C-alpha cells in the first residue's frame, strides 16, 4: 500500500498505541495535520509549544506512558526545547515530532529553518532527521523503544516537509529486533553475586537508610519498596522526584532529603553507615557539599543507567538494573538469610543481621524533636502557604495528582503534602522549570480524566504558561490551580534576604497585577480569591465541586515566609539551618509559651538540630536563625 510519509507517521503513532498528542500546526508540519483529521488519536491544540512539551511530560509522569507532541519547524521547534531539556533531566519518556523545511532547502537559511537536531542533541536521548519516507515506521518504532526503555528520556524526530509529502510503501516492523540499533542495549539481567554482596552490606549495617529516587517511580516499584522497607525496618527518604513512591504517613518514611529536606531525613543520611540508593543520582540538591555528604556511609547504588554508578559518589556495590526486579532480588536474598518479619517483629534480632533498633530510636527522637513546623497567621495577616497546602490535602482524595511549579511553593508542596500513591506528584526537578505546572497539570488530567488534578503554582511561574488554561477550557480539561500568590519571585527573594543582606533586586511582582481572577475568567475558567484563613477550606471545597471548567484560586500568601530547613548552596548537610527558633523549642526552652500558633507536621518529621549555622564566612553562610519576627513564640505541637 502506497501512502504519504505524513500518513505513515500518523499510522505509526497509531501502531504505537498513542491515544493523545499535544501540538500546534504550521508550514513544515502541515502534511502531517491532514491525516490527523482521520485518526482516532486525540489532538490537543496548545497555545504555545512549550505547553505541548510540558503537557506531554505531565501525561507521561502521571501515566507512565510516553507523552507525544507534534509541532512545526523553526520557532516551534525552539519553543519546545525547554520541555525536552526538562524531560531529559527528569528521565521522562517523550516523543516529539517537529516539521522541517524540505530537504533541498536544508542548510540554506530557508524560512522557519532551524537546525533542530543540532539544537536538541544535548537535551534528547536521541534524535533523527528523517531523509527517506520509507524509514518513517522504523524511526517511529525506534523512537518509542528508546524513549521508554533503559533510562527513559525524550527523543525527537525531525521530518522534512517533502519527506512527509513523498509516497512510501507502508510496512511496520514486527519487533524491535528488526530495528537497526546496534549500539543500544538497555540493561537486562542482574548478577546474583552482586545481589549477595548487597545483602551482606545490608545485614552488616547498623545505621542503614534507603535513599529513594525517581527510578523507583519509573520502574513502578513502590510495592516492592514497601515490602523491602517493612521486612527490614530500614527507614526511607524520598527525593523530590520520588516523593510519591512511599506513603508519607508510614512510620519508616523520613520525608525529603536535601537543600530543603527535613532535619531527620538530612541527618539520617549524614550519620548513616549504609545508603541504599534506589534509582537516585546523588544530585547536588541532595548531597550538599559532596565531600562532606554521608561521610561514614557505604553505598549500594542501584540505577538502570550505568553512567550514574560512580558519577558523583563511588558505590561499594554497584547494581546496574531496573529498580523493580533488583528490589525483588534483594528481598529474595534477604529472605534466604532469615530476614522476613516486619519492623515490629524484632527481625533486627535475627542472628544473621546486626541490630538496628537503636538507630531507629535515634531517628524517632529526631522526628519528635524536629518536626516540620510553621507559624499560623495571626489576625489580619496574609495566609501561610503551608496552611493552604495542608488544607488542600485534607480536602482532596488520596489519588489526587499534585503538580507544581518551581520555587518556594514547590518545596512547601513537597514537604507538607501527604503522599499515598505513586505517580501522584508531578514536578520539575532537575531543570527546575518555572511554568511547568499549568501545562503539566493539563497533561496529567488528560492521562487520568477520572482523577482530581491540582496544581500548586507560584505567581511568577503561573505567568509563564497560564495561556494553556485557554487550551484546558477549550478542550474541557478541568484542572485546578492554586496560586500561592506572595507577590514575589519568592525563592529568589529568599536567597537575597539570606545571602545578599536583604538587598532585593528585581524580585517584586505584585499581588494584583495581573488580576488573577479576571485573567482566569477571561480564559474560560472559574476564578476565586482567598485572603482570609477562614475562607481557605470553603473555597477549596467549591473548587472541588466544579468539574466542567478549570478553576484558578488566587491565595494571598505571606511573602515573608521562607522555606526551612535549608542547607545553603555549597554547604555541608551538617550545616542545616532550622526554622527560626526551632532549636529552642526542641530544647524545651519555650515550654511556657502560651500561644498555640505553631503548626507541626509529625509524619516525616522535622527540621532542625545540628545547631544553627554559625556564620562560617563566605556569602553562603551566615543565615542561621536570621529569623524574622515571631521566633520563639509558641511551643511545638504535633498534629
Amino acid at each position: 500500500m502506497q501512502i504519504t510519509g505524513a500518513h505513515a507517521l500518523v499510522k505509526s503513532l497509531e501502531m504505537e498505541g498513542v491515544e493523545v498528542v499535544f501540538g500546534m500546526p504550521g508550514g513544515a508540519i502541515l502534511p502531517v495535520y491532514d491525516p490527523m483529521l482521520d485518526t482516532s488519536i486525540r489532538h490537543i491544540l496548545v497555545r504555545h509549544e512549550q505547553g505541548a512539551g510540558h503537557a506531554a511530560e505531565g501525561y507521561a509522569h502521571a501515566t507512565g506512558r510516553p507523552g507525544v507532541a507534534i509541532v512545526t519547524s523553526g520557532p516551534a521547534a525552539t519553543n519546545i526545547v525547554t520541555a525536552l531539556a526538562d524531560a531529559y533531566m527528569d528521565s521522562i519518556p517523550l516523543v516529539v515530532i517537529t516539521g522541517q523545511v524540505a530537504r533541498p532547502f536544508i542548510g540554506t537559511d530557508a524560512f522557519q529553518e532551524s537546525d533542530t537536531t543540532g539544537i536538541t542533541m544535548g537535551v534528547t536521548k536521541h534524535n533523527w532527521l528523517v531523509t527517506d519516507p520509507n524509514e518513517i515506521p522504523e524511526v517511529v518504532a525506534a523512537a518509542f523503544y528508546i524513549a521508554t526503555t533503559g533510562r527513559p528520556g525524550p527523543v525527537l524526530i525531525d521530518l522534512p516537509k517533502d519527506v512527509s509529502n513523498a509516497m512510501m510503501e507502508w510496512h511496520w516492523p514486527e519487533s524491535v529486533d528488526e530495528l537497526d540499533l546496534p549500539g543500544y542495549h538497555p540493561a537486562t539481567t542482574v548478577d546474583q553475586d552482586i545481589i549477595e554482596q548487597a545483602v551482606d552490606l545490608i545485614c552488616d549495617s547498623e545505621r542503614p537508610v534507603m535513599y529513594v529516587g525517581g527510578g523507583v517511580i519509573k520502574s513502578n516499584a513502590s510495592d516492592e519498596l514497601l515490602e523491602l522497607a517493612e521486612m527490614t525496618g530500614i527507614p526511607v527518604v524520598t527525593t523530590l522526584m520520588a516523593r510519591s513512591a512511599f506513603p508519607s504517613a508510614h512510620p519508616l518514611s523520613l520525608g525529603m532529603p536535601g537543600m530543603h529536606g527535613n532535619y531527620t531525613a538530612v541527618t539520617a543520611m549524614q550519620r548513616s553507615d549504609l545508603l541504599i540508593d534506589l534509582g537516585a543520582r546523588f544530585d547536588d540538591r541532595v548531597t550538599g557539599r559532596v565531600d562532606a555528604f554521608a561521610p561514614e556511609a557505604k553505598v549500594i547504588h542501584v540505577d538502570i543507567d550505568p553512567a550514574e554508578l560512580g558519577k558523583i559518589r563511588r558505590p561499594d556495590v554497584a547494581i546496574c538494573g531496573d529498580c523493580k526486579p533488583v528490589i525483588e532480588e534483594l528481598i529474595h536474598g534477604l529472605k534466604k538469610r532469615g530476614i522476613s518479619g516486619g519492623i515490629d517483629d524484632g527481625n533486627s534480632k535475627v542472628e544473621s543481621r546486626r541490630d538496628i533498633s537503636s538507630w531507629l530510636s535515634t531517628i524517632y527522637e529526631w522526628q519528635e524533636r524536629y518536626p516540620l513546623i510553621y507559624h499560623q497567621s495571626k489576625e489580619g495577616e496574609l495566609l501561610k502557604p503551608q496552611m493552604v497546602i495542608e488544607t488542600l490535602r485534607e480536602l482532596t482524595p488520596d489519588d489526587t495528582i499534585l503538580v507544581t511549579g518551581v520555587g518556594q511553593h514547590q518545596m512547601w508542596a513537597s514537604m507538607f503534602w501527604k503522599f499515598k500513591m505513586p505517580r501522584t506528584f508531578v514536578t520539575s526537578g532537575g531543570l527546575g522549570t518555572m511554568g511547568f505546572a499549568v501545562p503539566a497539570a493539563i497533561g496529567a488530567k488528560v492521562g487520568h480524566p477520572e482523577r482530581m488534578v491540582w496544581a500548586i503554582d507560584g505567581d511568577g511561574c503561573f505567568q509563564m504558561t497560564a495561556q494553556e488554561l485557554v487550551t484546558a477550557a477549550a478542550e474541557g480539561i478541568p484542572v485546578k490551580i492554586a496560586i500561592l500568590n506572595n507577590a514575589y519571585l519568592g525563592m529568589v527573594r529568599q536567597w537575597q534576604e539570606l545571602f545578599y543582606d536583604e538587598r532585593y533586586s528585581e524580585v517584586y511582582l505584585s499581588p494584583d497585577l495581573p488580576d488573577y481572577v479576571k485573567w482566569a475568567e477571561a480564559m474560560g475558567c472559574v476564578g476565586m480569591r482567598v485572603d482570609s484563613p477562614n475562607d481557605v477550606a470553603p473555597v477549596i471545597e467549591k473548587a472541588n465541586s466544579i468539574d466542567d471548567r478549570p478553576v484558578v484560586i488566587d491565595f494571598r500568601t505571606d511573602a515573608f515566609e521562607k522555606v526551612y530547613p535549608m542547607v545553603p548552596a555549597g554547604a555541608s548537610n551538617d550545616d542545616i539551618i532550622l526554622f527560626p527558633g526551632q532549636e529552642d523549642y526542641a530544647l524545651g526552652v519555650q515550654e511556657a509559651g502560651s500561644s498555640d500558633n505553631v503548626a507541626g507536621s509529625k509524619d516525616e518529621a522535622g527540621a532542625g538540630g545540628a545547631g544553627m549555622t554559625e556564620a562560617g564566612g563566605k556569602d553562603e553562610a551566615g543565615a542561621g536563625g536570621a529569623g524574622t519576627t515571631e521566633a520563639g513564640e509558641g511551643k511545638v505541637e504535633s498534629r
Partner: protein
Amino acid sequence: MKAATGMEHLHIISVLVENKSGVLARVAGLFSRRGFNIYSLAVAPTDDKRFSRITAVVDLDSAPLEQIIMQLDKLINVVSIDELAPSDAIETELLLATVKSDNDIRGQIIQLVGVFEGKIVDVGIASLTVMLAGHPSKLDDFEELIRPYGIVDIQRTGRVALSRL
C-alpha cells in the same frame, strides 16, 4: 624513549560508531557538554561500511576514564568502545612539517629526518617539507629537534591505535 613522560593522564579510546550523519557532532558535543577534554581525535571508515572508528586521546585530568566511556556508550550510535591503555596499544601518528632550511643547514635537517626514518616530501629554495610517521612520542621528539631551525607550518593527524595482539 621518554614515551610516557607527562602523558600519564592521557588515554586512548577507540570508539566504533554507526556511519550516520551527525555522529561526530554527537561525540564531540558529548565531550564538550560534559567537560571532557580531548587531546586528539581521528575519524576513519572501517572495512565495514556501516561503521566508522573514532580514535580519541582523552585527558583523564578532566574526568575519570570510566565516566567518559559510560557516557559515550549511552550515545545510541556508539556501537562499542575499547579502551587502550598506552602499554597495551600500538599507536601511530603522522606528522607533516615545513621547516626553514637555508643552504648551510639543509644537510643537518636531512640527516635528522634520516635518523627518524622520515621522508623529505617537498623541497623549496629556503624550506623543506618532511613527513614522519610513528609513535606520538617519537613525533614529539622530532618536533622538538627541528623547532630551533624554524617551523613554518606543522600538522599532526592525531593518533590512531589498535590493541596489541
